[in-house]
């Protein structure tokens, strides 16, 4: 990453746009965390006439009698003299017009009637009713083999090429719409699995180890399901589990079934805000750190799971605890995460904890109260409905965080927490770091650490999402 004309620029990436009978691969650029696409390449591919007025710093695109005008460094575009606001400004760098992704749906769709579909976190766009069957991947260790199961809504033809460290499974159908961009399984034979169509040709890249003797592809269900088996060196190949949809009793069924993700809406609560700064040291305040972390976590979750992620606050405002859990309740969230930082009197303590609601909080009030008390029963017991789910989520979070951040402990604790008490979904509070520990607070403010932390929490959410406890919601 480097500073470029006052903008923070990240690495470029290829971005295929699939039209019904054609495709164009453009180079997307990221400035200030916003993905930009080169406009001229897209409109030239669509055959739209345009005028680039250097003096006026505008670009006018025409389609029939309609006219769309964009201006350098402005988020306002003019469609037939009607002003439309984009979330981010349009840029002009080195003679290239760069537009944020939203320009396609807000600008080009109005001008041409072409609909564009984009899933946040992915790097491809589908235009109009282009045929893009969904592709699901699932990897599993099955005794001596590691199996990648590929399931697609349309019949495919796959081919595999491999060397010592890589196997490339090419797919003859373009485009396809992968449900997941990559898989997490890592075992003796497999290092990573990732979908890639950066050149417009869809393929699955497998990083494999030297222990892999052979890679075999077996089709099933009229070429809609494929089993890609990695066979271990030294194992008799005949012992490999024969691929079959009627899996033997010992073979876990989920391999052939698509992984159902049950967490669809996640609400993240950046703790404190406004006048309520939370804990603080000479340099940092809890309210600022939690907001930064929440925004990073939102991006990570959207990218990883494609779920709806809402923040209880996206600016420096004060909110009471009831309002925070109300955001989760009102949006039927499947998971609620409140982010906080700690402050321990012990300067050497890293001070992290994962909190769930105290098990029997409010019991005395509800069981021994008089009939009159029952009339005024407060809404602080909503947590009870999903406390078991909250505990399960906390255990998964503990495992993932302890694994990813060695040296920091993440004990699961219970507390009568105001923000969790009326949340009617699995919910937990993460208290990360100790602002009284100079090193821990520096680490917390480190951009790379924050990204790693957000990625780890996203991993934990993904695991929880696929667990039976999430289904209870």
């Amino acid at each position, binding site marked *: 990453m480097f500073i470029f004309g006052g903008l923070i620029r990240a690495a470029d990436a290829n971005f295929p746009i699939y039209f019904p009978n054609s495709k164009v691969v453009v180079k997307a650029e990221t400035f200030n965390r916003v993905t930009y696409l080169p406009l001229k390449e897209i409109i030239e591919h669509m055959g739209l006439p345009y005028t680039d007025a250097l003096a006026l710093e505008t670009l006018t695109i025409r389609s029939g009698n309609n006219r769309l005008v964009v201006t350098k460094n402005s988020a306002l575009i003019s469609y037939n003299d009607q002003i439309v606001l984009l979330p981010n400004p349009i840029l002009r760098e080195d003679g290239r017009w760069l537009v944020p992704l939203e320009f396609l749906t807000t600008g080009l769709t109005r001008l041409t009637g072409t609909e564009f579909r984009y899933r946040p976190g992915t790097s491809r766009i589908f235009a109009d009713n282009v045929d893009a069957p969904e592709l699901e991947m699932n990897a599993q260790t099955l005794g001596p083999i590691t199996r990648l199961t590929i399931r697609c809504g349309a019949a495919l033809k796959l081919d595999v090429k491999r060397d010592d460290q890589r196997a490339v499974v090419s797919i003859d159908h373009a485009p396809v719409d992968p449900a997941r961009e990559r898989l997490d399984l890592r075992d003796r034979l497999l290092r990573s699995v990732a979908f890639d169509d950066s050149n417009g040709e869809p393929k699955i890249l497998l990083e494999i180890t030297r222990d892999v003797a052979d890679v075999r592809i077996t089709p099933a269900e009229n070429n809609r399901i494929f089993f890609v088996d990695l066979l271990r060196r030294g194992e008799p190949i005949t012992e490999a589990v024969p691929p079959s949809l009627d899996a033997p009793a010992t073979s876990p069924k989920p391999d052939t079934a698509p992984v159902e993700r049950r967490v669809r809406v996640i609400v993240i609560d950046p703790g404190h805000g406004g006048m309520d700064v939370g804990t603080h040291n000479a340099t940092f305040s809890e309210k600022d750190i939690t907001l930064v972390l929440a925004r990073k976590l939102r991006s990570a979750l959207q990218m990883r799971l494609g779920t709806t992620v809402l923040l209880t606050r996206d600016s420096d405002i004060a909110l009471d*605890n009831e309002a925070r859990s109300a955001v989760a309740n009102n949006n039927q969230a499947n998971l609620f995460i409140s982010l906080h930082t700690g402050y*321990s009197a*012990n300067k050497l303590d890293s*001070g992290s904890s994962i909190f769930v609601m105290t098990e029997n909080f409010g019991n005395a009030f509800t069981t021994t109260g008089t009939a009159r008390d029952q009339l005024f029963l407060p809404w602080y017991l909503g947590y009870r409905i999903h406390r078991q789910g909250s505990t399960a989520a906390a255990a998964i979070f503990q495992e993932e965080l302890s694994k990813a951040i060695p040296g920091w402990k993440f004990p699961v604790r219970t507390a009568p*927490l105001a923000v969790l008490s009326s949340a009617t979904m699995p919910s937990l509070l993460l208290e990360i770091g100790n602002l009284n520990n100079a090193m821990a607070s520096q680490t917390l403010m480190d951009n790379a650490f924050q990204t790693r932390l957000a990625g780890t929490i996203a991993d934990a959410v993904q695991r929880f999402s696929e667990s039976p406890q999430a289904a209870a919601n």
Partner: protein
Amino acid sequence: MGFFVNIVGRVRSMVNERETEENPFKPPTQPLYAPTDPPISAKIFLPSASGDPLLLGQDDTIFKSAELTNRARQILQKLQEVPQLDAIVPPLPKDTKIQDLFISEQGTAFIDFSNTIATGHPGGVLNEMATIYSIVDSLTYNIPEIKQVKILVGGVEKETLAGHCLLLLPLEMDLSITNVMPREEKTALLK
């Protein structure tokens, strides 16, 4: 002219003598126990510096005053007097005062702390829990008549002390965060 100056002086002194949190109305101090009250042992729960367990039970002595509220005040006084030690952290922010304390027939102790308990609190969930449960556990463990504790701040109900732990419902003893066993479990073990 002299009269005017005098009036200004009187108004000024009245303003200065106004009843505030820093300068509250002070009734004559009543002793919390009589000279004839026998000493009894008490377990005072204090935040540990290590955080594991969160609270450490420390043996101390109070006097068995006839009034339960006076016994409760003696316990709270112990919490106010804790110095910063290697293994122990003071549970209450400096200069926290107990403005009022009464115990209901149902066994709920209502304690009204001065605003300092919230404004002087460093924050953090664990710290907040340590403050709250050092009060709740010390009172409920030593005075069985107190079943639960309701904490008020500055004379009113507060949702939380420092943004985390819910204070709107009375809180019961929680020894799971301490190094002390519940009395019944301890008795069962001794048998």
